[in-house]
C-alpha cells in the first residue's frame, strides 16, 4: 500500500521567488558554453548588434535559470510546503514570450503556486506554479508555467 503524500492545498496562492536581477553578458556566455550554443549572436556583442539586437539576447529557456541564479535559496519554497528535494521531478514547463530580453535588462520575477493535485491514488502529487517576468519598463516579457511531480517515497517508482 502506498501512503498518500499529504500536501496541504492551502499552499495554493503562496508566492515565492520574487527577485529583480540584471541580465549579464558573462553569465549568458557561460550558459551558451554549457549548452553548446555555437551561434555567435549569443556570445559576441558585434554579432548580436549586426542581427539588430541592442545586446546579447536571453535564450528561450534561460528565463527559468535567471530566477534560480539570483534568489538566495531558489528551492526553499519546496521545503516550505513540505516536500523533500529528493522526491521531485520536473513534469512540465511552458514559456510564453511577449518581448525579447537582452543583457543589461533588469528583470523582475515573481512566482505563485496555482494548483496542487494528486494522481495515481496519491502516489504522485503535482504542484503547478506560474511565474511572471517584467522588465525595467514594466513590460511583461515572459510568462512561465511549471509543473513539479512529487514522487511518494512510499509508492512504487
Amino acid at each position, binding site marked *: 500500500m502506498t501512503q498518500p503524500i499529504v500536501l496541504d492545498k492551502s499552499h495554493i496562492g503562496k508566492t515565492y521567488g520574487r527577485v529583480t536581477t540584471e541580465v549579464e553578458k558573462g553569465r549568458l556566455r*557561460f550558459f551558451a558554453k554549457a*549548452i*553548446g550554443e555555437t551561434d555567435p549572436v549569443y556570445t559576441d556583442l558585434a554579432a548580436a548588434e549586426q542581427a539588430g539586437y541592442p545586446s546579447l539576447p536571453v535564450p528561450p529557456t534561460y528565463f527559468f535559470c535567471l530566477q534560480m541564479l539570483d534568489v538566495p535559496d531558489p528551492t526553499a519554497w519546496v521545503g516550505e510546503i513540505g516536500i523533500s528535494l529528493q522526491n521531485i521531478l520536473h513534469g512540465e514547463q511552458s514559456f510564453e514570450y511577449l518581448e525579447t530580453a537582452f543583457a543589461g535588462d533588469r528583470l523582475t520575477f515573481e512566482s505563485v503556486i496555482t494548483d496542487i493535485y494528486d494522481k495515481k491514488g496519491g502516489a504522485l502529487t503535482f504542484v503547478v506554479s506560474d511565474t511572471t517576468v517584467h522588465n525595467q519598463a514594466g513590460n511583461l516579457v515572459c510568462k512561465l508555467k511549471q509543473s513539479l511531480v512529487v514522487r511518494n517515497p512510499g509508492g512504487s517508482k
Partner: protein
Amino acid sequence: MMNPTFNSVEPGTQLPPLTVPPLSRAMLALYAGASGDHVPLHIDSDFARKAGMPDVFGHGMYTAAWLGRMLTGWVSQERIRKLELRFVGITHLYNQVSCSGTVVEKLEQDGERRVRVQIVAANQYGEKKIVGEALIALP
C-alpha cells in the same frame, strides 16, 4: 539560421535536427553552474542514490535548452511565441540526445501568421525525454 517564411513551409516540414554529445558529469557540472539549478540530484551521486536513482541524471531544463538551440537554429528567437514542454523520461548519463521538430499546422492568430511545431528530444535508443510544441511567427 534558415530564415523560413510562412509560404516556404508546410505541415510535415522538418526543422534541421540537432544532436549533442553524450551526457557527461562534466556537462552536468557546467549546466548546474550556468543555470543556477544546484539541485543535488544532478551533481551529487550520493544524494541521487539516496533518492533511489541509479546515479546523477540530466536537468530536464538542460535537455530543454537543446530544444531551444534547435529552434533558434531555425528562426531568430524573437519569432518564438510559445514553448510547451512535457518531460516524459529522464536523460541519464551517457544518453546522447537528438532534437527534432516537425511543422504540424499553419495558422493565423493575433494578426500574424504562425506555425505550430511538434518537437521531440530523444536519446540514441529512440527513448523520448521531452515532447512538446513551439508556436512560431513567420514572415
